């Protein structure tokens, strides 16, 4: 019968349409991959520089006349300055000296201060130490300074460049691995800025967020899916939860400001409040995902449990919930990944701030990774460009790790019927 209707021309046409459709699909995927590759190459090209930092080897004399007993207030920067002057004894007048000292980072002084605090016995000794060079020197070594410009248009003048070249020839200036980026908090000096503060802040915030939104979300989903009577009120709740999932995140920030900060007097800029606000935001996502996962468990499981004498609660907690867990976890982790990237609600509760100290608990002031990226992107110093890109890479690594754990969890617990 069918052959009767199939004219060869129409068949060829349909095959062509089929091939075209596949081609469109492949093109779409190819294009998406191309953009992804573009983003990653540009980020990595910009960001890998942050893994290296220019350091300067100086013969430091821990002079007792300069630093006294090694108190926290002492002028450690002067130790580095003296050592640098020693290398260039020809630099005498005040203005030139100032230019010379600009090659040093403020971090040099902090670094020397720390070594004295850790081991006061080095006072009076002479040591060869790698200290940080200024961000302008770093940018010059990394080739981010345009050559052939008039002196007035450069951050470094001709003499400074001559000094840098001389130091390089002496083997006293080189790019070294920048572990500070992973061990320090934020700083106004690009060479001292690290991501650890923001990472800890994000971790605390997400922990609070997960600890609240996961149990609440799962319990709400179980009740709504398994126990709640089906009536207009349940429908109303369902509609509202779906709507909540689509509310712009800044609204939750305003809510957090009004309730947690103004009414409950919780501390500003704390990961605790950040976590609470983000929990409100992720709750609907988790509820929706958990309900879908519970729904996908075949009714035969429930009926079998009930038939064997289990109470409704036992049937849910012993049989349905474990089967639905992979789906619930995936939903929860997707919700958390969404929370990971949020800055808007954090703005309202004071987490968009310059914070140097690394938070020790969930009530210490902290920022989060996306906020840190934003602050760096907004800083005038050019050396922050590579920090920004490196910060984005760290954020992406966080995201990939979370998604990967979602996949692993699902693989491990998945059960098929």
């Amino acid at each position, binding site marked *: 019968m069918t052959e009767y209707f199939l004219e060869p021309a129409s068949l060829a046409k349909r095959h062509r349409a089929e091939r075209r459709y596949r081609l469109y699909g492949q093109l779409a995927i190819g294009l998406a991959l191309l953009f992804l590759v573009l983003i990653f190459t540009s980020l990595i090209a910009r960001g890998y520089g942050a893994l290296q930092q220019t350091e300067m080897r100086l013969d430091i004399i821990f002079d007792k006349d300069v630093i006294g007993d090694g108190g*926290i*207030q002492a002028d450690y920067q002067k130790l580095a300055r003296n050592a640098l002057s020693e290398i260039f004894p020809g630099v005498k007048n005040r203005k030139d000296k*100032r230019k010379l000292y*600009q090659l040093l980072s*403020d971090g040099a002084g*902090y670094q020397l201060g720390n070594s004295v605090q850790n081991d006061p016995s080095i006072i009076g000794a002479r040591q060869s130490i790698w200290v940080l060079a200024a961000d302008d020197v770093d940018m010059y070594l990394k080739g981010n*300074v*345009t050559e052939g*410009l008039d002196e*007035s*248009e*450069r*951050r470094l003048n001709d003499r400074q460049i001559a000094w840098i070249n001389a130091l390089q020839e002496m083997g006293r200036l080189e790019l070294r691995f920048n572990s500070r980026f992973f061990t320090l908090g934020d*700083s*106004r*000096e690009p060479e001292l800025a690290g991501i650890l503060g923001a990472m800890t802040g994000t971790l605390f915030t997400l922990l*609070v967020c997960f*600890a*609240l939104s*996961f*149990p609440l979300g799962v319990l709400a989903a179980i009740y709504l899916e398994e126990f709640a009577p089906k009536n207009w009120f349940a429908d109303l709740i369902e509609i509202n939860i779906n709507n909540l999932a689509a509310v712009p995140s800044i609204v939750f920030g305003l809510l957090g400001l009004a309730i947690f*900060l103004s009414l409950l*007097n*919780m*501390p*500003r*800029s*704390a990961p*605790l409040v950040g976590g609470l606000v983000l929990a409100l935001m992720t709750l609907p996502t988790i509820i929706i995902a958990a309900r879908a996962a519970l729904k996908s468990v075949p009714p035969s499981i429930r009926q079998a449990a009930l038939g064997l004498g289990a109470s409704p609660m036992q049937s849910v*907690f012993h049989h349905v*919930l*474990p089967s639905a867990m992979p789906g619930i976890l995936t939903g929860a982790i997707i919700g958390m990944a969404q929370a990971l990237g949020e800055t808007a609600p954090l703005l309202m509760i*004071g987490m*968009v*701030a*310059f*914070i*140097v*100290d690394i938070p020790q*608990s*969930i*009530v210490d*002031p902290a920022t989060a990774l996306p906020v840190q990226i934003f*602050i760096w*992107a*907004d*800083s*005038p*110093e*050019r050396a922050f460009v590579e920090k920004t890109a490196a910060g984005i890479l760290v954020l992406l690594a966080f995201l990939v790790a979370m998604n990967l754990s979602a996949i692993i969890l699902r693989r491990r617990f998945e059960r098929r019927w």
Partner: protein
Amino acid sequence: MLKKAFVSLAIAGAVFAQTGMAQARDQIRIVGSSTVFPFATAVAEKFGKTTAFKTPVVESTGSGGGLKLFCAGIGDEHPDITNASRRIKISEIEKCSANGISDITEVKVGYDGIVIANSKKSDRMALSLKDVFLALAKNVPVGEGKLVANPYKTWKDINASLPATKIEVLGPPPTSGTRDAFVELAMEGGCKAFPWIKALKKTDKKAYKALCHTLREDGNYVEAGENDNLIVQKLDANPKAFGIFGFSFLDQNADTLQGSLINAMDPSFENIADGKYPVSRALFFYVKKAHVGIVPGINEFLAEFTSEKAYGEEGYLTDKGLIPMPEVERKQFRADVGSMTSLKM
């Protein structure tokens, strides 16, 4: 197993709630202007690293937002210091005193120039304030007392000595303090160059303000967001465009950008410091006297900020792009901070 997990989560929640109880604050909190932010953070960091006090937390909320938080009351949950890229308004002082904050110490930090810059790939422009006003105002005067919607499309239309390129200026949005200052100093400055408009100020202040303070919205002035770095990058990509931003961004990007001359003045460090460059403004911060002695370290922080090695002629803040005040003023504000002189207006 699941039950256990839930119980432990509940316990964790309870512990969180316990530690969440407010405790006395041992850390200075600063809010306010995004223009002062790079300077306040530099001082905060130095202060944290060279003293036994914790590093102050600095939030960038904008001048108006900062003063709103600052004036909300006295106590741990309110900030101690707010930065502003303009002076505090009478209305804000009234709001402060309504909330019990009667003693505020005002500290001027230094100056900031606002530049109109373009890419080095194009020629440098020499503008007068009048040119700036005519290029960017929504309505411009023709003849005596008559206004028309801004008809100028190229710079040459305004002033025959300027090039015939399209007027394309990227600048900050209305929420920005930089925009407020630009409108007040540059736009109003150019506006006043017309004698009849200057006379209008006395007779009809509202009309005067509407005329002088409104930027055009027909596409020649583009609001480019609060991020000055974004404007810098866009200028590099589009050599015909101009950008409006703070001096520190020009200072950091002097190899790719050039500041236009305004009234024949180059936006250089020296010209802004001498007050010769017409578009410059003072930066401030305000301290809540009631918090001094309660929150530890405020006095020491103020001493650090007003020290010669910070806001002085060759201090570290000038490396960040701050334009220092003359010595007399620096001394005066250092003395004010020492005695915590209250603001009187």
